[in-house]
């Protein structure tokens, strides 16, 4: 009953298109995150599920009912808002029971449900407080209790943790996961924080410019991003991108070459491609043994170090490889590479180093369309990850 389906849904405001031909299927009981940069249309998408916004085109289904033009109150959804949106003139009990009272439940039933909901979110003994007497985390819990008390088919959460401080946010994150396990209800969760999306959801829907870019489990989005946008958005810090070209020797750019047979990965030569490599897949030469299938050594100079405690981010300035035949257009963007190393690494700023890349973790994208061509050089396009690639190269 809690599955949600969007069919060719669009929303236009005057001359702006907020959501463009969105198709989305969310299964019952699933925890799904809509992520994307601000203004990408994720909140509009959620508002269309909630009924607060009516789509310009397309259909919305909740369960097996079409709800496209139903008002929010008749959709069987509950929502938690970014600004929490508790009614300031009502105490906690009245806030939680607001929806039940509107539906004329009898007093005992309301009491029973409010008590249960407040137990779930650990709000016992606070039912008579006013919202302005509570802390941010407590208010957020009241908002969640208000949502769960009606046993809705679908929970909609619009950046519910965005206004909380960092520590509380992490705490509430685990509470939400626990809640999802307990209630087993569909949760649609909007966030611009990819870390939240990665940690909590069953599947992530990455949205940009009103269009769905990829919808997959978090690790698939991370390991096999469907396009350049997803690759750059998921993962922090972001993936390194280098523009180059496919030749018969493999990938060639002004700074980094990766040799392979283009036929192996099924990309014709002469095509403009962008290579992506995550910071953790760049290794110092002394750690080369950790990589089953390294590229050849790449010369670089360390620029800035960012020690994070559990790892150090190293900005590398790349030396230019001599390619007279390559066009000069993409030189500027190509000369930097971000690497993450373990904190005990012997590394300093402004030193010449050599690094290698893990070939199985190299992503290739079509520069023009941004569509992923290959994940992992030694594997074929359809293979899914480093496991296969390692098996192949292990001869």
């Amino acid at each position, binding site marked *: 009953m809690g599955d949600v389906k969007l069919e060719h849904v669009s929303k236009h405001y005057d001359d702006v298109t907020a959501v463009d031909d969105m198709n989305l299927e969310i299964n019952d009981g699933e925890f799904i995150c809509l992520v994307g940069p601000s203004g990408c249309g994720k909140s509009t998408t959620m*508002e269309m599920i*909630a*009924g*607060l916004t009516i789509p310009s085109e397309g259909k919305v289904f909740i369960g097996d009912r079409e709800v496209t033009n139903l*008002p*929010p*109150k008749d959709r069987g*959804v*509950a*929502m938690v*808002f*970014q*600004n*929490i*949106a*508790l*009614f*300031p*003139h009502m105490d906690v009990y009245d806030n939680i029971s*607001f*929806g039940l009272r*509107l*539906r004329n439940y009898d007093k005992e039933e309301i009491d029973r449900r409010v008590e249960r909901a407040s137990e779930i979110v650990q709000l016992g003994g606070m039912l008579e407080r006013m919202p302005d007497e509570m802390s941010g985390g407590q208010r957020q819990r009241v908002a969640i209790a*208000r949502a769960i008390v*009606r046993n809705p088919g679908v929970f*909609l959460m619009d950046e519910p943790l965005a206004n909380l401080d960092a520590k509380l946010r992490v705490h509430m994150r685990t509470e939400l996961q626990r809640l999802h396990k307990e209630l087993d209800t569909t949760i649609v969760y909007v966030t611009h924080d990819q870390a939240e999306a990665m940690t909590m959801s069953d599947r992530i829907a990455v949205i940009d410019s009103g269009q769905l870019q990829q919808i997959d489990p978090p690790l698939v989005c991370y390991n096999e991003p469907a396009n350049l946008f997803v690759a750059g958005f998921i993962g922090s810090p972001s993936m390194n991108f280098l523009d180059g070209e496919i030749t018969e020797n493999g990938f060639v750019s002004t700074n980094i070459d990766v040799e392979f047979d283009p036929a192996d990965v099924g990309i014709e030569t002469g095509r403009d491609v962008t290579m992506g490599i995550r910071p953790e897949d760049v290794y110092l030469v002394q750690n080369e043994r950790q990589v089953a299938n390294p590229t050849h050594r790449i010369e670089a100079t360390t620029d800035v170090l960012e020690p994070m405690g559990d790892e150090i981010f190293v900005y590398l300035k790349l030396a230019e490889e001599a390619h007279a035949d390559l066009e000069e257009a993409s030189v500027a963007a190509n000369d930097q590479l971000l690497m993450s190393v373990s904190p005990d690494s012997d590394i300093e700023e402004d030193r010449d180093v050599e690094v290698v890349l893990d070939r199985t973790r190299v992503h290739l994208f079509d520069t023009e369309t941004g569509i992923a061509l290959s994940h992992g050089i030694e594997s074929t396009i359809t293979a899914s990850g480093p496991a296969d690639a390692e098996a192949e190269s292990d001869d």
Partner: protein
Amino acid sequence: MSSETSGVGVGADDAEMKRGPLGRWVDKAIKNPDRVYRAMFYVATVFFLVTTLFPFYWLLVLALTPNRLITNMGLLPKGFQPEVFITMFERVPFHLFMFNSFVLGITTTVIVLLIASLAGYVFGRLRFPGKGILMLGILAISYFPPAAFLIPLFELFTGNTALSIGAVTISSPDLFNTPAPMVLPFSALFLPLSIFILTTFYGQIPDGLEDAARVEGTTRLGALFRVIVPLSAPGVATAGVLTFIAVYNEFFFSFLMNNGEASSWAPIVAGILKYQGQFDTPFNLMAAASIVGVLPVAVLVIIAQERIVSGLTAGALKE
């Protein structure tokens, strides 16, 4: 502070001797501007109190003085006749006129608040083309002098206007001596101010609260009356009290849309004028009636004062 006074020393005494009292006062005022501000505050307050409260005092003086002695009045009553406050009810059923005023005021206030709430919601919370022009139109109309409407409205409400559609002629109803010809123009005249006040208030309620109410199970209208109106209580109280007082004080339509009898819904104004006979004008009774008539409004304002002040000065609502 002490170092400042001691630091002035002997030279300051010399300077003081050379100046006159005004010079010294100016000197002090420059050193300590707070004194001046406080002095100005007292002057302004006393001025305000005198101009507003003196008329009441004067009414009291007139009321207590027996009518035949009311000539060449000074600041004190010439005599003491408190029974005038009983006589006034014996001579004219003033309580009925007050009741009429209350009914007219409350009816108008309810109508105005209801309609202004809907309008305020639309103007404050929705976006639609032509909103600015429409709002401007409403404000402009509110500045039309009511006298301009008087004759057409009088004709309309006394049944002298007929509208012909083909063979059918619809004559306007004769509403003279009923509350309608007062309540209707009052509502129309005082609506713009309330719309304006409520628009600002409703516009400040965060969208999230309305969205939350709608998701929880109200319609837009339900959200307006369950969430937005209660949260805008100071604004609603302000609009309500201002409307009520305006109607209670109204003279023009109140005087002309009825025959001046309490049974014809004539309000306080008519009541006060009713004391005037063909051969005498009992100023003491009229003064007493005026005082009695003002009291309910004074009480209302004192009770609602806090709300009105906060409503007039700020949209004091945090999310």
